[in-house]
């Protein structure tokens, strides 16, 4: 399958601190859900920040559709069609749901087109449509996460990167969140999910990647990772049961 996004030998860290990523390679195929797992501090969120342009890469190359995108500004990366939904604090709390969606389409100059797309997104998420004039900070945790995800759809991206979409959510809401992810994949979107809940993430992904100490230890079909006894012992919990 042709790769949409490729990262080769990416090294990155914060400020003058040590390297968090020490040479990550990542290949993301089009139209798939790719799940990145690993222990705390492995560099999962850092990798997403580097791809999205929030953090510069110290070394390495990142290409998207064959074009180099490393060290572009976040707004430039977004214009290539890559969106990041960060772990927390993704929203503009004092803006309404509709205003947040409007900000999601900030790079769209045509106002008519922008409002058309916002309406399309609101049709996909009826609960947000109901609350379109409510302030983002007044939504529940699950609704806020849904709004953060839906906001990226306004620009019709090619890749959406979700950092810990299940964090702090009730199991029912997590299931809904992954149903939405499947729906988006079925519509042709490529999704990268960083997930602390590794089993849940891998069960919902086509492809997986295990990061540890800033390097990828294993890449392969998500099912293979789930079935690998060594990975299960190290990263999925020794006695984890994989259905």
């Amino acid at each position, binding site marked *: 399958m042709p790769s949409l996004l490729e990262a080769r030998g990416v090294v990155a860290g914060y*400020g003058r601190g040590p390297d968090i990523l020490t040479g990550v390679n990542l290949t993301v195929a089009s139209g798939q859900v790719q799940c990145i797992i690993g222990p705390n501090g492995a560099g999962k969120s850092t990798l997403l920040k580097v791809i*999205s*342009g*929030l953090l510069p890469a110290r070394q390495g190359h990142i290409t998207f559709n064959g074009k180099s995108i490393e060290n572009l*500004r*976040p*707004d430039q990366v*977004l*214009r290539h069609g890559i*969106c*990041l939904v*960060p772990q927390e*604090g*993704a*929203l*503009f*709390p*004092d*803006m309404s749901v509709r*205003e947040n969606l*409007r*900000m*999601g389409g*900030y*790079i769209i100059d045509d106002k008519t087109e922008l409002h058309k797309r916002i309406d399309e997104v609101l049709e996909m998420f009826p609960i947000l449509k109901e609350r379109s004039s409510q302030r983002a900070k007044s939504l529940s945790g699950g609704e806020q996460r849904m709004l953060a995800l839906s*906001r990226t759809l306004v*620009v019709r991206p090619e890749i959406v990167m979700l950092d810990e979409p299940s964090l702090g959510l009730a199991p029912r809401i997590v299931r809904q969140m992954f149903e939405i992810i499947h729906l988006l994949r079925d519509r042709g979107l490529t999704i990268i999910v960083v997930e602390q809940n590794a089993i849940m993430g891998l069960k919902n992904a086509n492809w997986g990647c295990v990061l540890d100490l800033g390097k990828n230890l294993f890449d392969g079909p998500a099912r293979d990772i789930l079935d690998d006894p060594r990975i299960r012992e190290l990263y999925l919990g020794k006695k984890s049961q994989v259905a």
Partner: protein
Amino acid sequence: MEILQVVVIGLVLGGVYALMASGLTLVFGVMKIINLAHPIFIIIGAYIAYWLFRLYGLDPILSMPIAMIGLFCLGIAVYKLILEREAGSARYAEMTVLLTFAVAMTFDGLLGFMFTSSQRITSPSYATDAILLGNLFLPKGQFYAGIISVSLIIVLWAFLRYSRLGYAIRATTQNRDAAQLVGVNVALVSTLTFGIGIALAGASGALISFVFSFFPSRHWEWIAMLMSLIVLGGMGKLLGAVVGAFLLAVVAALVSTYIGATWSTLTFFLALFLILLVRPQGLFGEKME
């Protein structure tokens, strides 16, 4: 009746204070810069209006746009040359306090050298005239300055509420990282916001040039007052600055009338101490974590 008169004067002055504070709070909201140089830019705006009036007879209200454009350019230059290089540093907040203090000192010295420390005031005909509303006496100069200030704040509010750049500024204020992720060029937005904040200082400078006498080092007095206003309202909140300005201006006017003029300045300091003790996030600020 006297109390109503005092309150009305306080409200009119509150409008002017609100405009003086609006740029300061806008810059803090977006960039987290406590701009100690803000009042010296107000003084520069006042000098622009003063000299245009003195040399060409240009009404200070008409010279307001000139002061705004001049100060916008000066603000951008100061930001680009002095402050931007610190953006991203771990001690950005502390450094900007020191740097803006240095900017204030530098312009204070330059203005003193150029125009001496003599007190100045522009004197258009309406500055010494008054409007009588029944038994209420409204000094025309203060009334005009107050009305124009409030109008400018409404324009600023509408700009922030409805324009594309306004959305970007509000987004950057509320969540800088998220703003970047939706495509806002926050470096450009920060530069423009600083320019707009200083342009507002220029506008208020032109207006106060016929309301208060001014001299270069008067900005030290004003920074304390402006900090009180924006801390009371909630740092970075435009509505907070406006409410804080009206509230404190009325209280200061009442204190001045019924206790003594020398005590009115103390109102601002007392308000600052009290709000920091009781509600440090200010009236409209979010509770700090």
